């Protein structure tokens, strides 16, 4: 005969068991869980060590760090003197030395603004954001280009190196996202004209290689506009890059828009919200959150492809390092140059990637959607 199975007292909610057991616990659970796994772990470690050790030896242990000429290089490991001797050029390009503080100032401001916007605890996000979008570009423009307020004019052909890379990347990123959002909304518009224009724009820019865009911007455009009208070459490249990437961005954002259930917009409609409020307050915040991985993916591609401006004669980070390789005093340090360039690009791209993951976690609301 079955016993009575009535529960009189409810079970209280308890904390989950603590499965974190420190580094040793983790090691045991994941790497040395039984003899077979221990052997596999040791084998993998051995292979990794055998494969990576020469790299570590070359890049760190046998490397030469100090000095200012190639005599400082022993030739056994990497010669980072090549980088440190040219560091200023790598960062500022041909920017006149007397005015380099202006680049520093803009870099510092950019860093401060990004940090301010990225750290959740800091107040007045709205005003700082507004300044970052409106005030900062104006200040950066005046400082970098000069020619006003008694600042020496520095034409863009003297720009180069990391500052040029960052200028192109930041303008590209800040410009392509809003333009992409507008294009994505336009492509879903009920109005045939708006939709048509957006579709043609997106399909045109997505259909041509970036190199072609840059060539057209630098070579073909001057053929079509009168000779007196002189567009700056960097400006033309910037606009080309912005349009090109905004087309990609538009399709990423459109993917997000399509994933939002129709009921969301209907609920917003039923509450009396107009089109822009429905989009800005209800649909876009959810859609953009969904496609953060895609957006950052596009940002990273954009950042790396800035090095293509080299083909229209602008000297970005990579091009400056390459030009250093042909310096007769420093022949034969190509490996160091390329490794350094790769490391710089990687640092920026990896930071963007990490930050986007952090944002995704922070914007996650609730267990379900």
């Amino acid at each position, binding site marked *: 005969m079955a016993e009575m199975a009535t529960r009189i007292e409810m079970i209280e909610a308890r904390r989950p068991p603590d499965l974190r057991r420190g580094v040793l616990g983790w090691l045991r659970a994941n790497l040395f869980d039984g003899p077979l796994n221990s052997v596999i772990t040791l084998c993998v470690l051995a292979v990794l060590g055998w494969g990576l050790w020469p790299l570590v030896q070359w890049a760190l242990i046998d490397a030469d760090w100090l000095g200012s000429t190639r005599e400082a290089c022993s030739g056994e490991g990497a010669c980072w003197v090549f980088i440190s001797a040219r560091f200023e050029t790598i960062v500022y390009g041909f920017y006149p030395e007397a005015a380099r503080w202006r680049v520093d100032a803009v870099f510092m401001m950019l860093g401060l603004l990004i940090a301010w916007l990225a750290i959740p605890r800091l107040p007045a996000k709205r005003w700082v954001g507004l300044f970052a979008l409106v005030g900062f570009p104006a200040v950066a423009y005046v400082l970098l280009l000069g020619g006003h307020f008694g600042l020496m004019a520095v034409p863009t052909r003297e720009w180069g190196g990391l500052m040029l890379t960052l200028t192109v990347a930041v303008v590209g990123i800040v410009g392509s996202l809003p333009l992409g959002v507008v294009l994505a909304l336009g492509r879903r518009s009920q109005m045939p004209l708006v939709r048509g224009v957006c579709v043609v724009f997106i399909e045109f820019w997505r259909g041509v290689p970036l190199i072609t865009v840059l060539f057209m911007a630098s070579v073909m455009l001057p053929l079509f506009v009168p000779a007196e009208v002189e567009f700056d070459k960097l400006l033309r490249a910037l606009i080309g890059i912005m349009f090109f990437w905004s087309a990609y961005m538009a399709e990423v954002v459109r993917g997000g828009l399509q994933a939002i259930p129709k009921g969301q917009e209907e609920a917003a*409609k*039923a*509450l009396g919200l107009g089109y822009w409020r429905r989009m800005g307050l209800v649909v876009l915040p959810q859609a953009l959150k969904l496609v953060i991985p895609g957006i950052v993916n596009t940002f990273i591609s954009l950042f790396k492809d800035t090095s293509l401006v080299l083909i229209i004669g602008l000297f970005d980070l990579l091009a400056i390092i390459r030009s250093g390789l042909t310096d007769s005093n420093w022949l034969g340090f190509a490996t160091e140059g390329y490794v350094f360039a790769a490391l710089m690009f990687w640092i920026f791209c990896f930071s963007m990637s990490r930050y986007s993951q952090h944002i995704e976690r922070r914007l996650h609301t609730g267990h379900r959607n």
Partner: protein
Amino acid sequence: MASTNPAAALADDPMIEVEGLNKWYGDFHVLRDIDLTVAKGERIVICGPSGSGKSTLIRCLNHLEEHQQGRIVVDGVTMTQDVKRIEQIRRNVGMVFQHFNLFPHLSVLDNCCISQTWVQKKPRAEAEKTAMEFLERVRIADQARKYPGQLSGGQQQRVAIARALCMRPEVMLFDEPTSALDPEMIKEVLDVMVELARDGMTMLCVTHEMGFAKTVADRVIFMDQGQIIEQAPPETFFNHPESDRTKLFLSQILGH
């Protein structure tokens, strides 16, 4: 087929007037010659088999669906294609959906404040006060800081009702508000709706909850194939239905 118009609809203060409403999806004729007058404070339950056009009808009343023929007047405002006009009507008409459609990226409180802040331009403090008032009324004020994803279906639907009420609408439309709920949560939502009905809100409710219809409805409307087949006060409707179609439907939903 006599569409009997009870006395309530003849009141001289109509909240909603629908005349000769026709709607097509492509070639499919979803709504056929709908005439409907709803008096201020009247509570109407619309029922019918699926695909009968009942949801489409109430979605036309706040222009979530566009109709091709006929006239809709809500609280004295005639529906046109004009966006301003449509938004004016929507401010007066609250709607509750089958799938709640709360905004998942906003807290419960922000869900209730969004239209007050951006449509009615109320200051934040005032909007929050109104929101809390209505959240209190649907008995969910203690969850105001949570996100919709952290609530049960019944709780979400009550928040959705509060959100619609925050605009202080003249009319409330309910589009199958309990169809997506687990059985144990249906009652908590119906209770809120019954209270709302007792407070004199004009309500149009598409639902299969016949108990709710019997308790609060002034008039039950039966639709089939895009037409109003029969409308009558609940006692007459349930006890002495006129058309065979209605009898069949009632036997199917009340038969078990």
